[in-house]
């Protein structure tokens, strides 16, 4: 019950942050709120037993992406020009999709149910075989680097492509004047 109350409080904070982020006109405060949002998500991940995900989210989601946003903000306007021309449309779409998803959520297994389908597939295999196969106690590392190593390879390919894209888009600033 205590765990539920703590989670409830944190998730309530998340909802408040999301709403303030919608309403704020200053882009800088929106960016900082997004950082706080990631940090609170990291705390929730800890309470849901995902410690590896929590520190990745805190370091990468809250730290690195906030730094990226602030670096980009140097060259961008600091304020949003508020135009509310399709708020009604957006509200209708979000409300409709939200209702459909909530309807679908009744078919999902109860959270924490050890008999849920997700826990019957490869999960138990990873839990019982990581130690004999790799000899390390951290199951997440074992799965990430060995059982699903090709996933991680794909991930590095994506990051490489994104880095290449950023370099090609921004360049080193030398060629930009020639085109203009």
């Amino acid at each position, binding site marked *: 019950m205590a765990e539920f109350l703590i989670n409830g409080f944190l998730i309530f904070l998340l909802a408040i942050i999301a709403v303030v982020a919608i309403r704020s006109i200053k*882009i800088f405060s929106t960016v900082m*709120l997004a950082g706080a949002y990631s940090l609170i998500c990291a705390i929730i991940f800890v309470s849901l*037993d995902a410690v590896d995900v929590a520190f990745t*989210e805190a370091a990468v989601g809250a730290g690195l992406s906030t730094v990226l946003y602030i670096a*980009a903000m140097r060259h961008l306007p600091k304020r949003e020009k508020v135009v509310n021309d399709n708020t009604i449309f957006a509200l209708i779409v979000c409300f409709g999709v939200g209702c459909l998803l909530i309807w679908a959520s009744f078919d999902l297994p109860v959270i924490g149910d050890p008999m849920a389908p997700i826990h019957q597939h490869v999960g138990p295999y990873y839990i019982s075989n990581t130690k004999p196969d790799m000899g390390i106690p951290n199951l997440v590392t074992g799965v990430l680097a060995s059982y699903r190593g090709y996933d991680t390879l794909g991930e590095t390919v994506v990051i490489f492509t994104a880095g290449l894209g950023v370099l090609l*888009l921004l360049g080193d600033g030398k060629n930009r004047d020639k085109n203009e």
Partner: protein
Amino acid sequence: MIHGILGIWNYWIVIILMMTGLFIVISRHNLVKKMVGLTIFQTSVFLFYISLGKVQGGTAPILTGYKDSLYSNPLPHVLILTAIVVGVATTALGLALILRIKSEYGTIEENEIAELNTEENSK
């Protein structure tokens, strides 16, 4: 009844956060704000996966050495680790695109960019 609600409550919060992100993406014209909306949307999906991997009474998936320990499912954690890192890579790419748009159009408001484009076409 109350137990049933508590059991799927996390999913509802995830859905509400997801719709907040979608609302920002649809209704705001500022491109940086759209990126923040996408981040909120993305993080709600992470919360959904991690909620699915939770086992009641379980502990973090690091072997304790005791025979009867119950662990949460490590697989969603691995998938979400990958997704977080890829998410930052796409954020960087999106911000680079926004910087290029700013230097081409002089604005990052989507409706102003659309106006500039129609003016360009009508000339």
